[in-house]
C-alpha cells in the first residue's frame, strides 16, 4: 500500500454511480419494491416525517404486499385499532391516486359513517363480502391485478406463503398496494410481505408523551404503531442514515424495549389520527428507533403502556 492514501485512490474505492444505482434497483426488484414502471413515485409517504424516515423508500411502496397485525383477538373486538390504521392507510392511497379502494372481508360489520373520517366515503370504498377466506384472497388478487384500484385490503386469518407470493405478484402486476389485515393469533408468518405493522390501541393520556399531552378526548384515535418488519431496513437505525455511525442493537436498548413490550419492533411510535383539517397521522411520541425514543428516560415503571386512571 502506498504511504500516502490521498495520492492514489484505489479504483475499487470509487464505484461507478450508475452501476451502484443499477445494483440497488436490482435489489429493490428482488425485494418486491420496484419503483413504478413509468418512473413515478414508487412509494406513498404517510405524511408524517418520523415514520416516513424510518421506511427506506420514504413511504409505503405501492406495488407490494403489506401486513397489518392487530394485537388483540378479533373475537374480542381487539382488532379495531388495526382496522382503523388500515382504513387510514387506504384513505391516503385513495386520496393520492383518486382511484377507489377495495376492502375484502367475510360478512358485514364495517360501518359506513365511521369510515368517512378516514377518507373512505362511498365513492372511494368498495366492500366485497365473501363466503370464505379463499374467496377473500381471490377477490384481492382480482382487484390487485386489475390495476384499477388505489389499494386492496383483505381481512383474513390464514394466508399461506403461496397466497402471499400470489398477492405480491398481483400487486406488482397491477402496481397496486396490497394489505393483509389479521389478528396476532393468525398463523405465524414467513416473510413475503414488504412491511409488517403491529397495531394496538393506546390510551389517550400517556406518560410516554413528552409533555404528557392528552390526545384531546376519547374521539381522537391513538394507536401504538410498531414497524415489526421492513425489507431492506437496518435493524437498529432502521433506514435513517445517521452520520455518527449506525448504532448496533445494544443490550441496554434491547432491555429497554422489551420492558416496553416492544419486542421485535424495528421502530414504534404513538400515533394520533387527527380529522382536522384534512385528516392525517401525528406522531406524538417515538417509542423506539429514533432520537425521541432515546431521550425517553427513564423508561416507565409499568411494563405496558398504560397509566393510572
Amino acid at each position, binding site marked *: 500500500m502506498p504511504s500516502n492514501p490521498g495520492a492514489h485512490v484505489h479504483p475499487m474505492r470509487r464505484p461507478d454511480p450508475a452501476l451502484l444505482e443499477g445494483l440497488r434497483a436490482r435489489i429493490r426488484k428482488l425485494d418486491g419494491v420496484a419503483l413504478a414502471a413509468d418512473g413515478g413515485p414508487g412509494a406513498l409517504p404517510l405524511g408524517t416525517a418520523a415514520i416516513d424516515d424510518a421506511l427506506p423508500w420514504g413511504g409505503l411502496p405501492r406495488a407490494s404486499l403489506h401486513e397489518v397485525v392487530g394485537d388483540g383477538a378479533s373475537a374480542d373486538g381487539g382488532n379495531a385499532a388495526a382496522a382503523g390504521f388500515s382504513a387510514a392507510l387506504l384513505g391516503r392511497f385513495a386520496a393520492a391516486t383518486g382511484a377507489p379502494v377495495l376492502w375484502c372481508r367475510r360478512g358485514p360489520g364495517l360501518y359506513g359513517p365511521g369510515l368517512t373520517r378516514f377518507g373512505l366515503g362511498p365513492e372511494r370504498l368498495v366492500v366485497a363480502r365473501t363466503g370464505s377466506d379463499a374467496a377473500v384472497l381471490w377477490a384481492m388478487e*382480482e382487484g390487485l391485478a386489475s390495476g384499477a384500484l388505489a389499494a386492496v385490503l383483505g381481512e383474513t386469518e390464514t394466508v399461506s406463503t403461496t397466497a402471499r407470493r400470489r398477492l405480491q405478484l398481483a400487486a406488482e402486476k397491477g402496481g397496486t398496494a396490497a394489505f393483509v389485515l389479521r389478528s396476532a393469533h393468525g398463523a405465524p408468518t414467513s416473510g413475503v410481505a414488504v412491511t409488517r405493522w403491529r397495531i394496538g390501541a393506546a390510551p389517550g393520556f400517556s406518560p410516554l408523551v413528552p409533555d404528557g399531552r392528552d390526545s384531546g378526548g376519547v374521539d381522537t384515535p391513538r394507536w401504538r404503531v410498531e414497524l415489526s418488519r421492513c425489507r431492506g431496513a437496518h435493524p437498529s437505525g432502521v433506514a435513517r442514515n445517521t452520520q455518527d455511525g449506525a448504532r448496533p442493537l445494544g443490550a441496554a436498548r434491547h432491555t429497554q424495549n422489551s420492558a416496553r413490550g416492544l419486542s421485535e419492533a424495528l421502530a414504534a411510535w404513538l400515533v394520533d389520527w387527527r380529522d382536522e383539517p384534512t385528516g392525517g397521522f401525528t406522531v406524538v411520541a417515538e417509542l423506539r428507533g429514533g432520537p425521541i425514543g432515546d431521550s425517553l428516560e427513564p423508561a416507565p415503571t409499568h411494563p405496558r403502556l398504560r397509566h393510572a386512571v
Partner: protein
Amino acid sequence: MRLVAVSPAAEAAGAHPGLPLAAARALVPGLTIFAADPAGERQTLENLADWCGRYSPWTAVDGTAASAAGLWLDITGCAHLFGGETALLEDLVRHLKEFGFAARVALADTPGTAWAAARFADAPTGACIAIPPGETARSLAPLPVAALRLDGATVDELSRLGLRAIGDLMGLARAPLAARFGEVLVKRLDQALGDKGEPISPRRPPPAFRVRLAFAEPMRISADVARAFEKLLTELCARLELAHQGARRMEFTIYRLDGTCARAGVGTSRPVREPAHLARLFAEKLARLDAGFGVETMTLAATAVDALAAGQLDLARDRDAALENRALGAEAAAARLIDRLGNHLGPGNVVRLLPQASHIPERAFREVSALAQPEDASAHAHVPPPAPRPLQLLPWPEPIEVMAPVPDEAPVMFRWRRRQHRVARAEGPERIGPEWWREDVNELSSSHRVRDYYRVENADGRRFWVYREGPYRPGVRPRWYLHGLFA
C-alpha cells in the same frame, strides 16, 4: 272424487272428465287412476313455456282454464328461422311428441282464433293447423261457440237460442248481444276476429336484443358450447353497436335435447358491448352450465340495455388485463373489476356503503350493490353525524353488565364478552330518539326506546360505543348494550 282428465283409450271406453270415480270404475273395470297434481302440471307447463323460448322469446302460459291449459307463442318474425310457419309447427309437434306430450297446435292471425282452432278444429291430435292470413273469419265460422273461451252458462244459453256455431254470432248486431250475454262474449268474438287487440303478458319479458344458434346435431361437449357462445356473443355485440346500446344484463340460455333449459346471467355496472369483457364474466358460469344429453339450441339475450355511444376503440384485445385497463382509463377499469367481483360473489356482496338519512345508527347507511348504476353522489349529501361514529358496528347491540352511577352518568366498569373493562374516559351522552314516524317502530321493537350513547375508552386505550336503553327510572335496573368499536 272425480276424474279430471282421461286418456284417449279411457275416453273411448266411456269415461270423461267430471265423472265420479266410483262410476268410472264401474264403467271401465281395470281403470288406472292417478292423483291429480295441479301444481305439478302447472310447473311442467311453465317449464315447457321456457323451453319454447327456442322458437320465440315471447312465450306465455295460457291459464284461462285448468283443464284446457295451453301455451301461447308469438312467432311473429321467427318462422323464417325454421324454414317457414309449417316447418316450425311440425318441428314443435315432433319435439313435443318426443317428450311424450300429445299436442294440438294451431297458428292463426289472432290468439283467439289459434286457441279455438287448437281445441275445436276437426283435426287429429298431433296435427298442425295453420290458418292462412285473412282466412280467420272463414275458419272460425264452423267452430262451436265454446271455442270463444266462454263460460259454461253462456254456452248453454247460446245453444238454447240455437246459436251453436261462431258463424251464427258473426252476423248478429253486437249491442243486443252484449246486452243479452254480457260484454265478455262480444269482446271474445272481436278478439278472435282481430277487431280488438288482445294483449297477453309474456312469461318473461322479451328482450330487445337476442341472438340464436341452432345445431343440426345436439352438442354435448362444453368446449363446443363455449365456442358457440363466443360466436353468439360477437354477433350480439355487433348488433348492440349498430344500435348504440350497451348491455347491462345478459342471459344465455341453452335448450337441451330433453326439453329442459338452463340459464346463466351476468350483470354489469355500466353498459358494455365488448365481447372480451363479457366473455370473462360468463366464463365461470359457462363451466357450471350442464349440457346434459346435448344442446340443440342456444340463445343469448341482452335483457337490459342502456345507451352507449360509439367510439370505444378495441386497442387492447390481445394484451393482458392490466395493460388493457391502463388503456381504458381508471374509471372504466374499476367498473370492469366490479363486474367481475359482482358476478363471482353475487351482486349483493360487492357493495358501497351509502349514507342514509336516519338518526338510528344501524339505519344511518345502507349497502348498495356496486353493480347498480352509480348514483349521483350529491343525492346523498352526507350530513356529518353530531358525534364521531365507530369504525365497526356489531350486527346486533350486545348486552353488557355495567357499573354506572345513577341517574345518568357514563359507565365506570363494564363486562363484555367475558372480559372486564375499566373505563378510563368517557364522552356523552348522545341521546338518539326513536323514529316514531316509521310504521315498523312499535312498542315491541328495540328501536322504539330512547338510547343514550357514550363513547368510552378503557385503561388499555380501546374505545367502545355503548348505550343505555331508555331513560333512568328509579328502582328499574337500566339495560346497557355495546354497539360498536372505535378505531
